[in-house]
């Protein structure tokens, strides 16, 4: 029974929530308009030909489509902005390097990536060559028996470092919400249970794979049959992971997809070469305030100061300027 609930029903629900949730979030973000082109320029703009730009400028203040893509790739795979991190101390002129945050983040995320890639062997038949190879390389095959996967331990270390930071650094402690701790605790629980299963209380991985393969082709009958024969320790890991999937779309973990949408990073700094059109103000010939804004059923309209209005308000002074033939010169003494 346990197997059926946790091995079949729960993962199906979790995956459904995950898929629908993530798609919903993406659509939701994409549906929101981008009124202005607002890249944060982190380097020299492209301007006159003799003003040289370094390679960093080209990625930090991208002008072309390619440079912008480069900036995004550096953000996603290198956490480039985080790599600039410093800490301010009140001795005022100095600023201390704080790239350890970057290091922890990289340690965690790349371990996560490796772990996920290794997990793909439960879902794919035949297992792709590079997955096998990667596993062998990172386990230093043959050095330890049974082989020890570095990423599996590194991810736990990375998570602990990130968590300790939230517990022991005063600023980060103040900022951390329960949900921030929760995400880390959940991930720790998953990764620790995974390691325990790997090194101490072994589960039958052949059966696990069979279960997953059947779940994937919706062969529910077979899945149910296998589910009950797998060791309980597997379900600890499996249920936690399912929970993570279901939790993912509603949490800050969505930053993983969000980073692709961020207008301060994914837009080129080419405002003066190519005009950006605001979808909700696509013909701005009359300012919105002059058309009037409606709040609570009342409309508030500002009078537009076009040239004719302006001229009628200050006719005398403007005529005086016209009389001097629009020229200003020092007063004759």
């Amino acid at each position: 029974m346990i197997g059926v609930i946790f091995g079949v029903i729960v993962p199906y629900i979790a995956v459904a929530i995950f898929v629908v949730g993530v798609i919903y979030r993406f659509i939701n973000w994409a549906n929101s308009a981008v009124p202005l082109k607002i890249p944060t320029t982190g380097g020299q703009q492209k301007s006159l030909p003799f003003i040289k730009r370094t390679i960093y400028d080209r990625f930090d203040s991208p002008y072309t489509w390619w440079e912008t893509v480069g900036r995004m790739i550096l953000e996603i795979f290198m956490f480039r902005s985080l790599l600039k991190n410093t800490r301010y101390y009140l001795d005022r002129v100095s600023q201390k390097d704080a790239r350890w945050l970057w290091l922890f983040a990289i340690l965690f995320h790349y371990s996560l990536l490796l772990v996920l890639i290794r997990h793909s062997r439960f879902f794919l038949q035949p297992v792709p060559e590079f997955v096998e190879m990667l596993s062998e390389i990172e386990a230093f095959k043959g050095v330890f028996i049974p082989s020890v996967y570095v990423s599996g331990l590194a991810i736990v270390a990375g998570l602990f470092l990130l968590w300790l930071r939230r517990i022991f650094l005063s600023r980060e402690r103040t900022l951390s919400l329960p949900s921030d701790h929760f995400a880390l605790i959940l991930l720790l629980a998953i990764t620790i249970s995974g390691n325990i299963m790997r090194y101490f209380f072994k589960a039958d991985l052949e059966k696990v794979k069979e279960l997953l393969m059947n779940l994937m082709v919706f062969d529910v009958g077979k899945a149910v049959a296998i589910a009950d024969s797998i060791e309980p320790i597997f379900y600890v890991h499996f249920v936690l992971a399912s929970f993570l999937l279901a939790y993912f779309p509603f949490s800050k973990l969505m930053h993983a997809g969000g980073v692709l949408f961020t207008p301060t990073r994914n837009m080129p700094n080419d405002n003066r070469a190519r005009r950006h059109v605001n979808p909700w103000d696509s013909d701005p010939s009359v300012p919105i305030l002059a058309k009037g804004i409606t709040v609570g059923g009342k409309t508030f309209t500002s009078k537009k100061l076009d040239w004719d209005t302006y001229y009628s308000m200050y006719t005398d002074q403007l005529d005086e300027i016209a009389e001097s033939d629009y020229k200003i010169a020092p007063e004759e003494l």
Partner: protein
Amino acid sequence: MEEMPEKIEIRQRFPEWREMLKPVKKFEEGRLSYISLPKQVDSEFFKMPFGDVERDLHDLKLPENWKELFLEAMKETLEKNRAFKLFMDICVRCGACADKCHYYIGTGDPKNMPVGRAELIRSVYRRYFTLSGKIFGKWAGARELTEDVVRELYYYAYQCSLCRRCSLFCPYGIDTAEIVWWLRRILSRIGLNQRFMTISIEASARTGNHLGLLPGGMAGAIQQGLEELKDVTGFDLHTYINKKGADVLFVAPSGDYFATPHWFVMLGYLLLFNELEEKYGLTVTWSTYASEGGNFGTFHSYEAAQLLNSKIYKEAERLGVSFIIGGECGHMWRDKHQFINTMNNPPKNEEWKRFWENPDLGELAEGLRGVRFDSYASGEHGWIHILEFTAALIEHKKITLDKSRNDHWAATYHDPCNVARGMGLIEEPRYVLRNVMNKFYEMPEHTIKEKTYCCGAGGGLLADEIMDLRMRGVMPRMMAARHVYKKYGVNILLTPCAIDKAQFPHALEYWKIPIEVGGPMEMVGNALVLTAFGEKPEDRQYDLRGEPLNKEEGE
């Protein structure tokens, strides 16, 4: 002028998360901006919702259904601005941005950390727009919208100068300036506007510039500048205003017409334009209608920004110019680089179109052939920064400069936030400065270029009543200035920004750093040899401040 605080004590506090969700009830002396009066926000030319009521922070006099209106405005914002929505959703509270904010550094107030500031509204977002917030309440970091929360939102929204420094360091580019800018817009929908900025917005909507200068006053100010230049150079110079058929429209921040040290930059512009006209025949005109480059609307809302910047392209079209040059100003260039051609239709006059088909100054004045702008600009925008323009003239050897005329200055350069992080104009001013003066020194690396620290008065925070906040916010910049003052004997802090030029003199006095403030175009004006008028390098006896250039030895 409000009293400057005698002593600054930075008390860092690290409350626990529950307290962070509770609105503060006590507002520090010197950090709370006044709320607008009806004459600013219920004016014929700038009518904001519920602007007809006089209110203060203790008695908000909100409209009856304010909560509904607030949430409605917030929902609209989430739909109208992807950045706002995304930034509500994806912050991981890693804290990388926390100590990047000069106001946090200067006040130690945890809600002045960029992420703390954003959380103030994010917590409301969670409560009303997310499932987890609705279910788990404060355990998901959500909180009710109450009048106290509105007070707090106002208090902290006006302790952010929209400098974007936090955005630079955030792994997802979360720009607290963007959040705050749209939050201010939401607050303005329930009748809360900040007085200082709306005074200027209203004036600019009514007269064309923030100072409320009428056409005669502006022409008079420029005329006085020409008279001073006659004393300095001995030549009869002139300029144009509202002139149809000029080649270029020049738009400066209105501070340049009156304030000091802005004034000396204004003299620099005038010298350059006279040399160009006399030597090459390029004509530049000012406009009384488009007399404001700065745009305080960009501190308030998209719509207010548009109301103010809508005049300029229209004026360019009316006068029939070929392109626009903009003066020295910070936020102005966020507006004139990133906003203006989205918020408005670019000019369609013949001269404009013809010029941008082949944007070579030689098309306007033969002698300037070779100076082109098409490597980065087009007729869909058409603005060139005065320092880009000057750099191009220098590179193509179109003007003659005598660096030694600036030998009495040892300068450092402050990058205005929005010029650096909203535009990327970083090397052009340095190129110009290296060509017009011999003694130029950089401040420490983490305080310049894209990492530049704010002057502490941007984004509408130049108000007198928040002097305490201003003097605290400027501290990181002042420490960097003191460093170069001690190390290299720097005696002038140059900045191409009108707000900086208003803030730094107070700040330098407060932090006891005995150096002057100026703008790069002042240095250009000093060094520029008016060859077309027959001036020789050694002829100039005075700098633009009227100081004799060749002081007696030992003075």
